[in-house]
């Protein structure tokens, strides 16, 4: 369990995060949702150690972590094979089973500019899961993809997560995404600069396109969706 207590962060005397408290249970997918500029990515970067923590405390801070970046997640000057080998420190043969399973072997000798954004994110996610991290941070990894590509990647993420069930902290501004992927959703308010509400979500064990459609029709999905929608709307006014 990761526990964040009274975390504060400011830039140039402008307070971005104020007394943020958060509890992330081990082996769960926890989403942080909020409007643009609420400080979601900043909070994620502080938790991952990419930004120095100013005040506050984090207990059980992960020793081995990985991060799925939103933009430029792979080195463009290296092939996908070299990208995977370099960043994980492992031989590509160690990943052959997963690469075969997800039909990614054919892309190994290509450069990132030669493949689609969706396939790049598959490699980005695969790298994060195969690095055997205790905690995986996902920073809006699907935000620039179309709905069909996003749904494929939700399934892909779910498949990977099911193997070893690492703790995942997902930053998103998409309510649908957070509802489909998470066990818990915390709302980070831009106005109050902290987490004001946390929702528990029923997840289904197999996330595929049929189940996604079914899930969207369920009352709990629609209830939480409208609750979060109201929170986002009020936070912008």
């Amino acid at each position, binding site marked *: 369990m990761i526990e964040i207590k009274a975390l504060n962060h400011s830039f140039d005397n402008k307070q971005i995060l104020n007394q943020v408290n958060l509890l992330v249970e081990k082996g769960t997918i926890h989403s942080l949702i909020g409007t643009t500029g609420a400080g979601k990515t900043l909070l994620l970067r502080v938790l991952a150690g990419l930004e120095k923590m100013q005040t506050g405390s984090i207990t059980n801070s992960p020793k081995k972590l990985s991060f799925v970046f939103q933009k430029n997640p792979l*080195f463009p000057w290296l092939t996908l094979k070299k990208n995977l080998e370099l960043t994980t420190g492992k031989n590509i043969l160690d990943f052959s089973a997963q690469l075969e399973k997800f039909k990614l072997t054919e892309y190994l000798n290509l450069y990132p500019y030669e493949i689609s954004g969706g396939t790049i994110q598959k490699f980005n996610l695969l790298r994060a899961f195969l690095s055997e991290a205790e905690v995986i941070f996902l920073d809006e990894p699907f935000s620039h993809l179309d709905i069909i590509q996003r749904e494929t990647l939700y399934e892909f993420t779910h498949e990977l997560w099911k193997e070893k069930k690492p703790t995942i902290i997902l930053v998103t501004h998409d309510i649908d995404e957070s509802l489909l992927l998470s066990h818990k959703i915390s709302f980070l308010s831009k106005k109050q600069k902290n987490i004001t509400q946390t929702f528990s979500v029923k997840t289904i064990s197999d996330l595929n396109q049929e189940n996604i459609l079914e899930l969207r029709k369920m009352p709990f999905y629609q209830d939480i969706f409208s609750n979060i929608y109201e929170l986002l709307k009020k936070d912008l006014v």
Partner: protein
Amino acid sequence: MKKGLLSCLIVIGFLEILTAMGVIDKAFFPNPILIFKNTFILLSTDDLLHQTLFSLGRLAIAFCISFPTALILALLSAHIKTFDELLNPLVALSFPLPKVALYPLLLLIFGIDSWSKISLISIGLFYLMFINFRIGFLRILSSNYHDIIKIYPLSIKNYYLNFLMAGTLQEILTGLKLALNYGLTLVVVSEISASNNGIGYFIWKSWDQFKIINVYSGVFVLSIIGFALYFTFNSFIEKIRLKSN
């Protein structure tokens, strides 16, 4: 490349017509075909080839001095803020200085043999390489690619070779392209005075003996070298740019 060659052929063809029509004085502007023939003869009889190799040797030695110096200093500048704050103003202050102005001083320090010329060329090469390498290293270290290696740490060898050097290859090659082309200029300038070999010496000697066509042959050989350097580096830079976009 093809378009570049085509534009050269158009200019050459135009000059050929003007000289054939007698519009321009052949004594000062020999026709291009004659210059090619003369260059080929001079290269095959060893004289021009020998002098060209002398000059390229000086450029190569100067490069071997400047490249590691610029690379190490740029790496230090990019990684150590205080070092950068100390070095960068010195570079900014001395960079606009015409390097040729240092040549008399270098002749006094190193004498009239090759080392005065090599030191002048080295200084000229250093600035263009250092400035471009530093920009590249600073760019990559402030990009989100640097975040990737904070999360997935690399070995020292991979950090320098596959991250820093490979990731800044565009700036490195741009620095080399600019430096080597400027280096050619400095080779000629340094060999024009206080020298008895090199392509600069060959051009100056030809002018002194009023062998104008030989002057053109020397200039033509320099152009070919410059052209080859420019297009070789540009083709690599284009390939890298394509990957980065």
